[in-house]
C-alpha cells in the first residue's frame, strides 16, 4: 500500500505547488494586462484628439477606490498573518473583510460607470472610452473572481483546513491591487 505522494513533499522548486502556481498565473496576468496597457499607451502617446475625453473620468471615485483596494490588501495580509499562526478563524474573519472591500470597490465602480454611461460615455464612444472600460472591466472581472475565491478559502479556513491557501489567494489579491495602482494614475490622473 502506498501513501499518495504529496506534490509539495517532492517539490524541486523549493516552494509549495499552490504558491508556485499562483506566481505562474500572475506572470501570465502581467502580460495580459501589459498587452492592454501597452496598447493604450501606444495610442495615447500618439496624441489623438480623443485623448481630451480623459478629462471626464472622476478622480474622486477613482481615489476612493484606490483607498478601498489598498485597505483590502492590508486586510488580506493580516489574514495571512493569522493563517501563519494557525488561527483559521481570525484568518477567515479578515478574509471576509477583504471580500467586503472587494464588494465596496464594485459598488463604487458601478456607481461611477452608471454616471458615465448616463452622460453618454459608452464603450464605443471613442478610443479613450474603449480602453477605459476594457482595462477597468478586465480588472473588475479579476476583482469578482478574487472575491469568489476568497469566499471559498475563507470558508475552509474557518474550519481550520488548507490554511496555506490564505496566503495564495492573498498573493492573487495583492496583484489585483497592484494593477489598480497602475490603472489609477493612467486613467484618472494622466489627463
Amino acid at each position: 500500500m502506498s501513501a499518495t505522494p504529496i506534490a509539495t513533499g517532492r517539490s524541486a522548486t523549493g516552494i509549495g505547488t499552490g504558491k508556485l502556481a499562483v506566481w505562474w498565473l500572475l506572470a501570465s496576468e502581467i502580460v495580459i494586462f501589459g498587452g492592454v496597457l501597452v496598447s493604450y499607451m501606444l495610442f495615447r502617446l500618439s496624441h489623438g484628439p480623443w485623448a481630451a475625453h480623459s478629462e471626464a473620468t472622476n478622480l474622486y471615485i477613482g481615489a476612493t477606490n484606490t483607498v478601498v483596494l489598498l485597505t483590502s490588501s492590508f486586510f488580506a495580509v493580516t489574514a495571512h498573518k493569522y493563517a501563519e499562526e494557525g488561527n483559521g478563524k481570525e484568518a477567515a474573519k479578515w478574509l471576509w473583510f477583504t471580500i467586503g472591500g472587494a464588494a465596496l470597490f464594485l459598488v463604487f465602480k458601478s456607481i461611477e460607470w452608471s454616471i458615465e454611461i448616463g452622460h453618454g460615455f459608452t464603450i464605443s464612444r471613442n478610443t479613450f472610452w474603449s480602453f477605459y472600460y476594457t482595462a477597468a472591466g478586465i480588472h473588475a472581472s479579476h476583482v469578482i473572481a478574487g472575491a469568489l475565491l476568497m469566499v471559498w478559502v475563507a470558508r475552509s479556513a474557518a474550519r481550520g483546513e488548507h490554511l496555506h491557501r490564505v496566503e495564495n489567494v492573498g498573493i492573487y489579491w495583492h496583484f489585483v491591487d497592484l494593477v489598480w495602482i497602475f490603472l489609477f494614475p493612467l486613467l484618472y490622473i494622466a489627463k
Partner: protein
Amino acid sequence: MLRKSELPGRESGPLVAGAVMLLFDQNLGTAFFDPDKGGDPVLWQHLFWFFGHPEVYVVLLPTMGICAEIIAVFSRKPLFAQKTILYTAFGTGIISFFVWAHHQFISGIDPRMAHIFTITTLIISIPIAEMCFVYIATLYGGRIMLTTPMLWALAFVFEFLIGGVTGIFLGASGADIYFHDTYFVLAHFHYTFFPIAIIGFYAGVTYWFPKMSGKMMNETLGKIHFWGTIIPFNGIFLPLFVLGLAGQHRRIYNYEHFPDLATPDLQQLRVFATYSLIVMLAFQLVFFFNFIKSLMSGKNAGKNPWDANTLEWTTESPPPHGNWPGDLPTVYRGPYEYSVPGRESDFWPQDQKD
C-alpha cells in the same frame, strides 16, 4: 526529463488582451483596430503574433523531447550531448519571443524592424538545427532498431528538416516579399506542423501505448500505417512548394479568376496533392483499427517491452495509482546508460543497484 513544455501562458497574454479588444471591436463598436475610429489594425497583428510565434515553439519542444527519448532507446546509445539539448531548448524558447514580426514583413512594418526580425529569425534556426544534428549523432554508431516508434521519430527529423530549411527562405524579408501569402508558406508550415503535431503524436502513442494500456500494438499494422502516412504526406505538400514558387497565392476559391494559375501542369500538381490526401486519410483507418484491436486483444506488454531506461519503464503497465505499487524507486544513475562497455545487457536500469 526532456518533456518540457515551454513557458505556458507567458506569451499568450497580449493575445488575450487583443482577443478581448477584437471581440469588443466587433460587437460593441470600440475603436481598437478600426482606423476610421482612431485605431490601428497592425496593432492586432502585433498582439496576435507576439503570442503566435512563441506558440509554435511551445508545440515544437515537447515533440523534440519525445523524439529524443525514442531515438536514444532505439539506437541503444546514450543521447548525444544531453546538456546541450537542454540549453538549446531553453535558448530556442527565449529567442522565439524575438522573432514574431516575420509574419508581418509585408504588412507595412518599418523595414528597419524587418531587418532586425530577419536576423533573429535566421538565428533561431541554429539551435533547432543543432538539436537535429544531435539526434543524428545519437544514431551514429548505434544499434538501430527500426520499430514503429523509431520510424516515426526518424520521420520527424527528416520532415522537420525540410520544413525548417524552407522557413529560412520565408524568414528573409526580401525573399518573403515574393513568398508571402503563397502556397510556399503553406508547404513550409505543414512541413513543420505535421511533424510536430501528427508525427510526434504517433511517435508518442506507439511508444507509450504499451505502458499506458499494458498491451502491445501490432508492429506490422504500425508499419503499414507509417508508410501509408509518410509517403502521401510528402505527396500532398511537396507539390505545394512548386505551386508557391509558380505564384499561386492563398485563399483562391476559383482558379478561373487567375488564368495564369489555371494551367494544366499546375492543376495536375493540385490534383495529385488531393489524391495523396485521400490516400493518407484512408491509411489512418489502419491506425484506429490497430489501436482499438490492441486495446482489446493485444499481446501483454509487461513492464519494459522496449528495454528502455527511463523510470516509467520500471513500474507496471498500466501504472497503478501513485505510479509505483510499493515504494518509490531509488535512482542510482542517469537515464541514458545504454550499451555500457563491459556489461552483458545493453541497458542498465536506473533503479538497479548494480
